[in-house]
């Protein structure tokens, strides 16, 4: 017997010493939904930048509204997919169950429904839904056929039924007027209540919003500190005092900013906020963390200097491009260039491709067949190159070119600087911090440049403050990381505190965001951009996601879902009722379809017989974007909900950005492929770390 066997309790709670310590970031990367979280943030930023309305409460309420019905289904479908099955009838089932409910309550006219009370019709349609799910599950289990085939059959049957049955009973393919049903007044608020928040004025809202966001981000930073640095044995109270001072200063700065007017005051309060935050963060570092003892002198090797220098040059080029290219130029680049230049580009592209193909085949024109291969490759590459350059120039206006050059070059420059910092950090923490401080300066300079140059208030104020805040954080990071020791081993207490802090940070950010969503200011009301109305479906979406997360993560049934999807035979051998579990999953999906059907029926009051057809693939896409494996046994409910949010953002965003909505599906396709590739990449990284 080993020591561990003799004292099993002594080991509890303390991680094993053979377990290499995983940093905060790596641990976050192991979660299946991380790809979806990053993706949704990127897409949100993208649409926020290109659309007037997207970032407002009104735009967001629209996105949430679309994501609700999609998300409820995506969550249920994700559970089923983790259990290793598909349901292609889920889309058609939403419409079918809505129609069933309407037909049950419609008056018995010359043609028509059953004339039931809604209090009877709603439970009755739920029974129909359960029967549908039970049927799908039982047929899949009994016949052993792939669920893909079985539910595809159900899909066609439902589609036929919806058309045939509604024509048969009311001789119309749009089944309407659920509001004729008795009990409508009771059920309508439950399934389709609308909550308008436009008259709810709260002028200090932005103070709460700003404090929430700042506090949340500061808490995240503290969480990362706690996870990353080695704790002191003896805490330093002076540092705590400094932290408190910084906290108070930040609050004062925010209040100052909101209650005084004028640019000089803004600059003053901005400086107060930034200074106090840096002070506070350093205070925390002094208070809690062990200082670096070993040699910490500056070593900057030539590669670091090269990277940093290149980064700064690239950024300067980007700034120069932004200054030189016309701000308002609406002509395409091709129009601006002298005639005949497209021929020059074409010839150049072919020449370049030919040269590259020639160099690759060092053998030259040795063998007969080789020549043709080289020629073919050169022609192909030249064609692709010329077409893409010309297409780019044809589609891009000068204004667009300016934005692309500036954003592309400055991002590249920042990435190069970050690479330099990472590399410098390897030789000593202080060298890394030096480059990080340079990073912070460059970010601040870029922010000032954007503020000075941009014509749009969104860029002048919001992007400016985000970038300045980022610069402050990077600077604080640089100062702290040059001084504190990195943690090499796991520390249970510190990890717990770190988790707690990041949860608190999340809550603070959410409080800020929600206050911004739910209240308007007098100024916003006057300018009329604040129209926000929330539907009941959003609450249903949140509730379904919360319950499903709990079920999957913390219950017996959740374990069984993973087990039947991961290895059904193994699950059965240890006594998991595999067939029953899968049938229940199908019933969960049809139950969700029932809920969504009712949400649609009460909201639209009239359903077309085609409602929901074809949406089953969107549910599957949302689940896959959220990190659920197509093969079963792996995935996340939260990820599926975020996946639905991504899909809704891309649907709504294209409309709000005033683009042609015909491109919606192309966009969806790109997102699907991108998200799955990102998920796989992250998963591979995370597995390698394990």
């Amino acid at each position: 017997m080993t020591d561990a066997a003799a004292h099993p309790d002594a080991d509890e709670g303390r991680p094993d010493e053979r377990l290499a310590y995983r940093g905060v970031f790596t641990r976050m990367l192991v979660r299946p939904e991380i790809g979806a979280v990053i993706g949704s943030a990127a897409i949100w930023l993208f649409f926020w930048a290109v659309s007037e309305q997207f970032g407002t409460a009104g735009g967001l309420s629209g996105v949430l509204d679309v994501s609700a019905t999609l998300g409820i289904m995506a969550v249920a479908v994700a559970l089923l997919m983790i259990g290793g099955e598909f349901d292609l009838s889920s889309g058609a089932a939403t419409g079918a169950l809505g129609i069933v409910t309407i037909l049950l309550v419609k008056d018995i006219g010359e043609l028509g429904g059953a004339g039931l009370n809604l209090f009877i019709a709603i439970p009755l349609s739920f029974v129909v839904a359960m029967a549908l799910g039970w049927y799908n599950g039982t047929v899949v289990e009994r016949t052993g056929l792939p669920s893909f085939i079985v539910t595809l059959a159900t899909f066609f049957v439902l589609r036929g039924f919806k058309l045939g049955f509604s024509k048969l009973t009311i001789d119309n393919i749009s089944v309407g007027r659920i509001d004729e049903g008795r009990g409508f007044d009771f059920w309508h608020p439950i399934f389709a209540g609308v909550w308008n928040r436009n008259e709810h004025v709260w002028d200090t809202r932005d103070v709460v919003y700003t404090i929430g966001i700042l506090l949340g981000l500061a808490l995240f930073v503290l969480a990362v500190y706690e996870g990353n640095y080695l704790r002191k044995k003896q805490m330093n109270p002076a540092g705590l005092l400094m932290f408190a001072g910084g906290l108070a200063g930040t609050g004062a700065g925010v209040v100052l900013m909101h209650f005084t007017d004028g640019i000089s005051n803004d600059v003053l309060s901005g400086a107060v906020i930034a200074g106090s935050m840096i002070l506070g963060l350093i205070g925390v570092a002094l208070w809690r963390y062990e200082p670096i003892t070993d040699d910490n002198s500056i070593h900057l090797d030539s590669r670091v200097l090269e990277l940093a220098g290149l980064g700064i040059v690239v950024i300067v080029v980007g700034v120069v491009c932004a200054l030189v290219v016309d701000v308002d130029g609406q002509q395409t680049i091709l129009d601006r260039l002298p005639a005949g230049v497209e021929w020059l580009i074409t010839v150049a592209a072919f020449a370049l491709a030919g040269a590259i193909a020639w160099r690759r085949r060092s053998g030259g024109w040795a063998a007969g067949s080789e020549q043709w291969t080289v020629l073919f490759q050169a022609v192909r590459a030249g064609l692709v190159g010329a077409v893409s350059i010309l297409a780019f120039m044809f589609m891009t206006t000068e204004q667009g070119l300016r934005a692309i050059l500036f954003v592309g070059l400055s991002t590249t420059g920042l990435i190069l600087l970050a690479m330099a910092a990472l590399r410098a950090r390897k030789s000593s923490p202080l060298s890394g911090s030096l480059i990080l401080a340079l990073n912070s300066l460059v970010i601040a300079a870029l922010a000032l440049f954007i503020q000075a140059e941009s014509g749009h208030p969104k860029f002048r104020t919001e992007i400016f403050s985000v970038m300045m805040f980022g610069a402050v954080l990077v600077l604080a990071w640089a100062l702290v990381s040059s001084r504190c020791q990195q943690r090499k081993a796991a520390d249970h207490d510190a990890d717990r505190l770190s988790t707690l802090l990041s949860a608190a940070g999340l809550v603070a950010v959410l409080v800020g965001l929600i206050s911004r969503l739910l209240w308007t200011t007098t100024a916003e009301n006057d300018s009329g951009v604040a129209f926000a109305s929330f539907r009941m479906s959003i609450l249903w979406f949140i509730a379904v996601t919360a319950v499903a997360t709990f079920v999957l993560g913390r219950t017996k049934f959740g374990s069984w879902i993973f087990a039947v999807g991961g290895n059904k035979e193994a699950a059965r051998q240890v006594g998991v009722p595999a067939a029953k579990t899968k049938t229940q999953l199908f019933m969960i999906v049809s139950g969700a379809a029932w809920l969504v059907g009712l949400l649609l029926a009460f909201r639209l009051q009239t359903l077309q017989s085609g409602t929901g057809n074809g949406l089953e693939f969107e549910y599957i896409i949302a689940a896959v974007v959220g990190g659920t494996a197509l093969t079963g046994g792996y995935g996340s409910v939260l990820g599926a909900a975020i996946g639905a949010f991504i899909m809704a953002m891309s649907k709504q965003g294209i409309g709000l950005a005033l683009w042609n909505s015909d491109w919606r599906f192309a966009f969806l396709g790109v997102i699907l492929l991108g998200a799955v590739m990102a998920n796989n990449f992250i998963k591979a990284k995370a597995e390698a770390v394990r």
Partner: protein
Amino acid sequence: MSNLIELDNVGKFYGNIIALKGVTTTVNAGEVTCVLGDNGAGKSTLIKILSGVHDHSEGTYVFEGEECAFTSPRQALDRGIAAVYQDLAMVPLMSVWRNFFLGAEPTIGRWPIRWVNKTKAKSIAKEEMAKMGIDIRDTEQPVGTLSGGERQSVAIARAVYFGAKVLILDEPTSALGVKQSGVVLRYIVEARNRGLGVIFITHNPSHAYPVGDRFLILNRGHSMGNFAKEDITLSELTQLMAGGAELEQLQHELEQAVSGRG
């Protein structure tokens, strides 16, 4: 000592095919009974009878002094006969503790608000593995990332924890390297020392001999004998298993071929 399992002249027919005939052996608490045989010798059929997948066609199967005829693995499991199969019965993407408690998760609360007691499950899984002499690094890690021997150990520890009196191990060492096999053999001894009756099925006599107390040798569906350890040596065991004379012949031919080349 009372016998946990007594098999007397047990046989199994599938239609006109005689899969197993005349098997007689005993399994005692705190002893390892090895079932040896080449491919197609009827080992799988014997496991299926013992673990309740199939009923036997003739003879008697006595468990704890009671004659039984199981019709489902669940019945055998409820009586305390647990089988650990070659394909491991593990879900590779699930964590160690979830696999350990799969199908019998400890819960808190009442239905409908009832959830898995994660901390308890994790600490029990770690503790039980430690009792088998395996110090698992992190019970949250997926079973798929464990080595073959460690996976076997999770399966064995699980069976032991859930009150198995008899542990049936189907070829636990066949897919493992030399070192890993040694580890699994140690777990077998560990389980035996904890008072379980172990049935160890293998086609490798050099794995069976060091740990076994009793050897049942099968060949082409027939019992070739049932020996206590003191009655048989390793080389006799190997010979019997491969059909005696045939192996001698093969050895002779091999020696000739080797010397011919040299």
